[in-house]
Structures are given as C-alpha cells and as structure tokens.
C-alpha cells in the first residue's frame, strides 16, 4: 500500500573486532509499532542510533519517514523523536524549562514553545511537577518528561530505546498507556526492549535480535505459536497420581506429555480447546485424582525468547540457569 515509515536493508556495524550489527533488515509500516527485542548488547541501541542519524553504519541503507538516513540526515531529524536509554533530561532545569528549551531550539518561537510545553506536560501528567527541577523527579516522571521532550515537534516516527528499563510496574504501565496514545494518534513507533511483556503489550510486530542478527520476526502471537502455543499443565500432590494424569493427558495428542517428577507436574500442548480441558477434568475426577493445580499456560514471550536464542532474556533474572542450559542443548539438537 504505502511505503513503510521505517525501513532498513543490510545494516551492519562493527566496533573494532566486535560485530555489533550484521545484515539487519527491518520494515515498520506507518502507524504500527515494531518491538525490537533482545538481550543487552544484542545490537538494539546500535540499530536505533543508526536510524536516528546518530551513527553511520558500515554497510546498508535505511529510510525513515520517506527520507534517506545517510543522504538526508537533516530531513530525517525533522521527522523523528528519540527517547534514549537514559532519560535525557536536564536535571538542573524544571520539567517545563526542559520542554520549552526544545521548543525554542525547534524554532517554534518562545510563545508557541510555552504553549506546546504546557500541552505536553498536561498530556504526560506532569503539570503538578512542571516547575520542579527534573533532578527531583522519580524515575517514571523523568521517562515521561523525556518522552514528552521527544514529541515537541509532533514527529510522525518515534524511536524508543528501552523506554521503561529500571521502572517499577506501575510506572511502566503508565508509560505504556502513553505510548499507546501516541500510536492511536498515528505515530509509527520503533521500540527496543528487553522486556518480553513490553513487546507483547505494545508491539504489532516483534523482531528478535541476538548478537547483532535478526533471528525471528512476526506478530507476538505468531512467535508464540512457533514455540508451541498453549499448554495444559496439571500438578498433583502424590507421585502415584502423576501416572494417571500422564495417561489422561497422553490421550489429547500424539505427543508424549512432558513430566517433571520434582514438581509432580505433567503438561501437554493443548489443541482441543475447552472440550479437551473438560474431558481431562472429567477423567481425573473419575479416577479420584484431586489436582493441586490445573491450568492452561499460554506460552509467554519468554518462552519465545528462550526457544529462539537458547538463552533467557537478560531482564528476566529469575530464569533457572539449568533450564537455560537445557534449552541451549535443545537448540543445538534442533540445528544439527
């Protein structure tokens, strides 16, 4: 239909011997959100810096809002907003002064800059704190101010580099809501994140990046389906009941149920929907087995990440290292 708001072809970048980015292709249709998902050092920031004209790639080309990033960086800058990994606000200015300064630098004129600042402060729920120094802001408020500062010129394309890293859940949800408002008003967003949940919440499509390469792309649902979709998980109190559960689950699919003896849990890919759940439930009741837990587990983006990269995302540090090894082995087995 129309050309994508952001597109990149064959982007590569080396820092000394370190290949930060290798042959990355991206395309973000106008008005949508692409989540660039990957662990620390995967190349997310490098990608954003190249697209935001801050860094020159060794190879490849890119256009943002119809302008060539390498040939017309000044035109690109007129059409983008960038929120970097740190909240790039001047701590020794007030929230209002921060936004007004950007407005003046964008040549809105002092009066218009004031009006625009008041508008953005209102929109990002910072009006009460507008005349406090930014150094006294909470982490979430700084991020909001940073986001507001990147929107002064009403750019059609917005780059968000790890916009909620280090924030608590409430602040993250507030920021997500505000990003969604921007998307609703037609802004195209490229978002990098290590939080799988964030990509799941905000992104129409997700590109998974690891060690400088794109390793998968699709909608969050497509990616989840790729690692097996929903699973029915049943755990019991007695080990003796586990065999009954396993047999019952085995009737659902040609596949053998996965059994974990330690947690006395058996699980299987769920294909039959609610009927399958009902039949298992009836079968267990007939056998007199009272499950400790009986749950449908949707595969999360974490599962996607593990399956694709062989290691857990850096942000989920509660990941069991043993399980990570297991997955790494699995991946090796698959690739052989």
């Amino acid at each position, binding site marked *: 239909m129309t050309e994508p708001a952001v597109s990149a072809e064959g982007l590569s970048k080396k820092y000394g011997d370190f290949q930060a980015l290798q042959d990355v292709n991206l395309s973000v249709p106008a008005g949508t959100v692409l989540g660039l998902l990957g662990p620390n050092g995967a190349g997310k920031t490098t990608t954003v810096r190249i697209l935001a004209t801050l860094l020159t790639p060794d190879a490849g080309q890119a256009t943002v809002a119809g302008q060539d990033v390498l040939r017309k960086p000044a035109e690109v800058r007129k059409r983008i907003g960038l929120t970097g990994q740190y909240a790039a606000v001047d701590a020794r200015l007030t929230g209002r002064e921060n936004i007004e300064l950007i407005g003046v630098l964008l040549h809105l004129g002092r009066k218009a800059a004031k009006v625009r600042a008041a508008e953005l402060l209102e929109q990002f729920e910072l009006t009460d704190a507008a005349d406090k120094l930014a150094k006294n802001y909470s982490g979430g408020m700084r991020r909001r101010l940073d986001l507001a500062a*990147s929107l002064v010129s009403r750019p059609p394309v917005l780059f968000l580099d790890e916009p909620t890293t280090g924030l608590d859940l409430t602040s993250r949800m507030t920021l997500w809501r505000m990003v969604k408002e921007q998307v609703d008003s037609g802004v195209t967003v490229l978002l990098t994140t290590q939080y799988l949940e964030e990509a799941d919440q905000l992104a129409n499509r997700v590109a998974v990046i690891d060690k400088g390469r794109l390793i998968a792309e699709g909608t969050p649902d497509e990616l989840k389906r790729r690692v097996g979709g929903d699973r029915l998980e049943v755990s019991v109190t007695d080990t003796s009941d586990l065999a009954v559960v396993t047999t019952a689950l085995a009737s659902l699919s040609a596949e053998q149920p996965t059994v974990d003896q330690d947690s006395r849990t058996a699980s299987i890919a769920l294909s039959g929907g609610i009927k399958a759940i009902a039949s298992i439930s009836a079968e267990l009741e007939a056998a007199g087995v009272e499950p400790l837990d009986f749950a449908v587990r949707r595969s999360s983006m974490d599962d996607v990440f593990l399956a694709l990269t062989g290691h857990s995302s850096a942000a989920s540090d509660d990941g069991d290292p043993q399980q990570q090894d297991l997955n790494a082995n699995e991946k090796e087995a698959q690739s052989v």
Partner: protein
Amino acid sequence: MSEVITDSFALVGRQMRHIKRMPEQLIGLTILPVAFVVVFGYLFGSAMKVPGGQSYQEYIMAGIFAQVMLSTISTTAVGVAGDLSNGIVDRFRSLPISRTSVLLGRTMSDATLCTWSCAVMAVVGYGIGWRAHEGVLKTLAAFALLVLMGFTLSWFGALLGLVLRSPETVSAMSSIIVMPLAFLSNAFIPLDGLPYWLRTIAEWNPLSTVVSACRELFGNGTGATSDALPAQYPIPGAILLLGLMLAIFIPLASRAYQKAAAAR
C-alpha cells in the same frame, strides 16, 4: 546563520539557569580567582622581586587573570562530558539544529563566566594595589583579550570532553594539561632565568603571549626583554595565536560532536 545565533543563545540561557540553580558553582568561580589573587599577589608578592624594579603585584595580575582563564578548559570539558554521558548530546543531535549552535552555546556561556571571574579579580586586585595605567579603552581591550582566550580554551575543552567522554577522565586529564601551560609561562615568573630551551618553549606558550599583551595594555611593564617574536609583538601575536587556535579547535570539536557517543 541567524538560527545558529538564536539556538546558541537559547543554550546560553540553559547554562545561566544552571548557575542560578547551583549557586555553589558561582561561588567556585568567585572564590578560586580571589584566592589566586590573594595567594600569588599578596602573599608571594611580599617575598618576590621583579627585574626592572616594578611591584610584583603589578607584574603578577595579568598572569593571574590568564591562569584563571585556563580553568575554562576543565569547566567546558566536564560540562560537555556530562551532557554526553546523560544522553543530552544524543537528544540535541537527534533534533534538527546545527551542531555548531550546541557547542557555541556552551563555549559562549563559559566565556561569559570568564568575564565574571575577571571582574572579581580586578576588584580584589585593586584592593591589593594593582593598577592599570593606560586608560579605559586599553584596559577593556586587555579584558576582551582574556575573555577571547577563555572562549578559545573553552572550544579546546569541548574537544577534550567529546574525545575523553567520561567526566572522571576529563577532570583528571585537564589538570595534567593545565599545569604545564600555567607554569611553563611568564604568568608568575620572569623568563630571563630559565635555560634557553625551556625559555623558548615558555615564550611560545600562547599563555605567555596573552599575559605579555595584557601587561602592555595595562601598562604593567613586561618585566623582561626578549627577542622571541611573540614577546616582541605580544598584542598582534596574542590575537593571531588565539585566532589560529580557534581555527583548529572549532572544526575539530564540531567533528567530534558529530560522531559523539557516550562512553559505554
């Protein structure tokens, strides 16, 4: 061009607000120069003799003025490295504003602070007996030269901050650079007693030239006879040297800014 000026002034406004918010920075800019005048001019002056019989207070003031201008290197470098590490440089670079204005805003405001330091030192200097003898115009010209020197060194500081990137490295490095510049010059001592090679280096030190030019403009006597070119024509020499330095530092700093990235 007019946009560069508007942008730069908006950024000067930002720096001035910083000063307002952190009066301790202004205290630093006031106490340090006062301390220099008192220590070098008053305390040392009681024990020093300058060839030619003039008072050490008269001789030393131009040196103290220039020495304090040197501290602009670290002021600017630390400020730029700070903006770099907290992402503000990235923000500015992602905006459609000229890269010159960001650095020009910074260097102009740091030069403004030089003006303040000069004013403070002039008052304290007057208190300990320093006088300018050549009239208002020449006195003002000397101060203008000092502020130009501050502005030039501020560009050097910007380059330093952009290249070294971390504020910690910057403060360590700038004192290493400032020390020899300050003391291998005629700021505090007449150069007559130095071995020939050392004396040549000191005579060609831009700081010496500016100091000699100021001494001439203040009518404080140059205190030394030398056949080195910058010592013979200190006023044009100083303007030429500072202009040359600006012609080198401005493009280098702008280039470094264009490629600037925070330390990882």
